[in-house]
């Protein structure tokens, strides 16, 4: 089936089998391998991307469902200024040591971006509950929560 969607601001056209998951379309067809697959039951959130600005698990969306919509992956999050500048959330994860192995990080960052878009000034508990759909095995979440709080308070320099 032919689809067209905006991925990180660029329109992409594809011909996909209907059963192709959005995450596989992004990774295998578009080469956007920053979006990771950590499970097969919509549990871990590693594959989180923004669909029309909202966090979704791209392992539980068919590519054909994203037809006509806007997708933002981790590759499209930083401003395309060419100077290596990071998005404030990426910068916050760096500054607060909110990642170790990094595998959950793209999904975690995009989930956090979506969270702050809906709840710009969360409490720590709001952040913890707001990230309930994203699992991390390295950090114990302590510094992830700090990262999101720092991004929310604008204490990180983008």
């Amino acid at each position, binding site marked *: 089936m032919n689809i067209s969607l905006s991925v990180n601001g660029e329109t992409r056209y594809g011909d996909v089998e209907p059963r192709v998951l959005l995450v596989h379309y992004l990774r295998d067809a578009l080469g956007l391998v920053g979006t990771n697959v950590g499970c097969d039951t919509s549990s871990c959130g590693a594959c989180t991307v923004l669909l029309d600005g909202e966090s979704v698990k791209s392992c539980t969306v068919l590519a054909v469902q994203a037809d006509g919509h806007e997708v933002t*992956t981790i590759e499209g999050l*930083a401003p395309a200024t060419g100077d290596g500048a*990071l998005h404030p959330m990426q910068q916050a994860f760096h500054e607060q040591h909110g990642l*170790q*192995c990094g*595998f959950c990080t793209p999904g975690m960052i995009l989930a956090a971006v979506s969270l702050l878009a809906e709840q710009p000034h969360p409490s720590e508990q709001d952040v913890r509950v707001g990230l309930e759909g994203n699992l991390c095995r390295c950090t*114990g979440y302590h510094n992830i929560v700090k990262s999101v709080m720092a991004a929310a308070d604008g204490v990180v320099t983008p």
Partner: protein
Amino acid sequence: MIGDRLLRKEDARLVTGEARYVDDLQIPGALWMAMVRSPFAHARIGSIDASAALSMPGVQHVFTGPDLRDAWINPMPCAWQVTEDMKTPEHWPVAIDKANFGGEIVAVVVADSRYAAADAVDAVVVDYDPLTPVVDLEEAASDQVVIHDALGSNRSYTWTLAPDPAALDQAFADAAHVVRERYVHQRLIPAAMEPRGVAVVPSPYGGDITLYSATQIPHILKIMTTATCGVPEHKVRVVAPAVGGGFGSKLDVYAEELVAVALAQRLGVPTRWTETRSEAGVATIHGRGVIQEMEMAADADGRITGVRAKVLSDMGAYLQLVTPGIQLLGAFLFAGVYDVPTYHFECTGVFTNRTPTDAYRGAGRPEATYAVERTVDALARAVGIDPVEIRRRNYVQADQFPYQSAGTLLYDSGNYEPTLDQALELIGYDQLRAEQQRRRDAGETKHLGIGISTYVEMCGLAPSRVLASLNYAAGGWEAATVRILPTGTVQVVSGTTPHGQGHETSWAQIVADRLGIDPDMVEVLHSDTAISPVGMDTYGSRSLPVGGVAVAMATDAVLTKARLIAAHQLECAEDDLELVDGSLQVVGTPTKAMTLQEVAFEAFSAHNLPDGMEPNLHAQVTYDPPNFTFPFGTHVAVVEIDEETGQVDLVDYAAVDDCGNQVNPMIVEGQIHGGIVQGAAQALWEEAVYDADGTLRNPTLVDYCVPSAAELPNFRLGSTVTPSPTNPLGVKGIGEAGTIAATPTVINAVVDGLSHLGVTDITMPATPERVWSTIQAARGTGEVDQ
């Protein structure tokens, strides 16, 4: 520099999606493998009909065990023959006539795409003849059904440490208090967020192969690829690209790796495989799976006089790389931080029809620490004193270090009581005890529990001669190369294999600190045997106390050579040179100086070097540690227990750890945070549950309860610094300490919170139903809420 909270050099790649994990690699022409796995825990394999699968679009081949038997010159490796008479079953990557655990590979599908391979798996028809599964560990030990006929028993080995049996018996005979405890460590699924992945690129004419794997051990895997697949070692390159966590589960040589190598060679094209999470539940090793009988003798005041530990360890169906040795890593630590004069440990390894076990974060030390710290609490109850007091009475004292333990270890350095004092202060112990009592007096149904544990662990694997004494097949050294390049920047080549631990940052700090340069000028290379040919990889909290020390020593060696060159060119004595901000200056004459960059260029041009000196400025050091390192600390957990529902909430947690000098406290804290959660997860959430048929009931993350941020509190961290005297950095490992400490801390808190109801034990994980049932049993009543 050393001691700074330097932000990580690794992060930019990881927060932008630029890092490449195995599944991210684009490999033209690669065929995808998918594994047909036994649904039975124990079954004879009859005929395999692949015709339907082979007729599906995109499917190229289906291979069975017999098809591939001659692809390997040796079976899957186990590197740890813990006793002379240890029984080792033959273990081929693809089962040949019998499947011995649910999930064992019985056939391999090879197809053009990931989707085509997945589709074909269900179309391979395997005729199984189910056999009686051996699931329960103690039943397995009874040998009613023997899994491996050729071995004649399910008991693989019994390993004993009995330094002085007579003294031990006397201690127990003379004891005023003897406590006897039985603890079960459930099986755990490591659940690194990145499932495993393998890709093999052969070179049919050149003869070499490149194996990409999500592994902690590219160096060991290279040797084992040679040993099993017969590819000459100098033709094998192993690359661990970005690796998404390991926790011991990627410290192994896996069937899928050896299948991928074998098929890449046979087919002459690249092969690849990425594990699904559901598959990982059965195909990647499990952790723990241990039953402990623990006895502790003490005098009337609660001073411990002896410990006796007997352990049954579930090997699973086969011996993976270091399966039989895991409990040996805890064998010496059943007296923990306490000054105990007599000691006995024995462990029996037993086969079951379940996924093999192997190293999982802490590997043996969490088990030992759990046994000690829970038994000490039981002793406190028997003596009638506070858990804080029982510990103070028994700690090895600061002036006893280096301390020769009855468990035959020489603890390098320690000072335990200050970690307890600081942890109690951080958590507000006295106020918590008052609040606990208030709730009890008021008859509230949400109870407060406070748990303590003080741990010591042995890490920094390991002195090679000690490993030899334990019959481990390899040594425990680590290698590092430091090169100051002609233009003055520095390359470090490390034999360690980081997968989240931040070696690129910490090693750069060590080098920059010693050379007086900016850490941005230092790049750390690793995890590719073509770039870093010599190494022993990352596990057992070894990277800093062995690999980091090697980096420091290689830096010093480079600096020594730089001094020789500078002294030669500046025409002064070496001793007259001092290193100031990356420049070698003549003491008292700062104008007479050469920057390290200048020295490096002189070493490169080689126009004017001392007679006989080789050009270039680099050094390789291989460091074999003289001892383990012994980090320690005290953790305190606070739980709230809802008596009506059995729900346990971890509401507060303090951890005071001492890992000697800290190279990067930010990274140290991160290791502790994550460690605490993995330890707490064993206590409260996680368990691989099998049914009576030996089927794993919860392979997915829907049912295997890895906790999320929503279930956890923030952590209060403190530290003390007691340098290790055995290495020049004064450092100790910290990768596993949090996990080692946390499990007993949390369970002690749960038991403490219910102690007034008569509860003395709770099975892990302390699920709501278990907690609720335990309360009912302690009360000797049925329901109490109505």
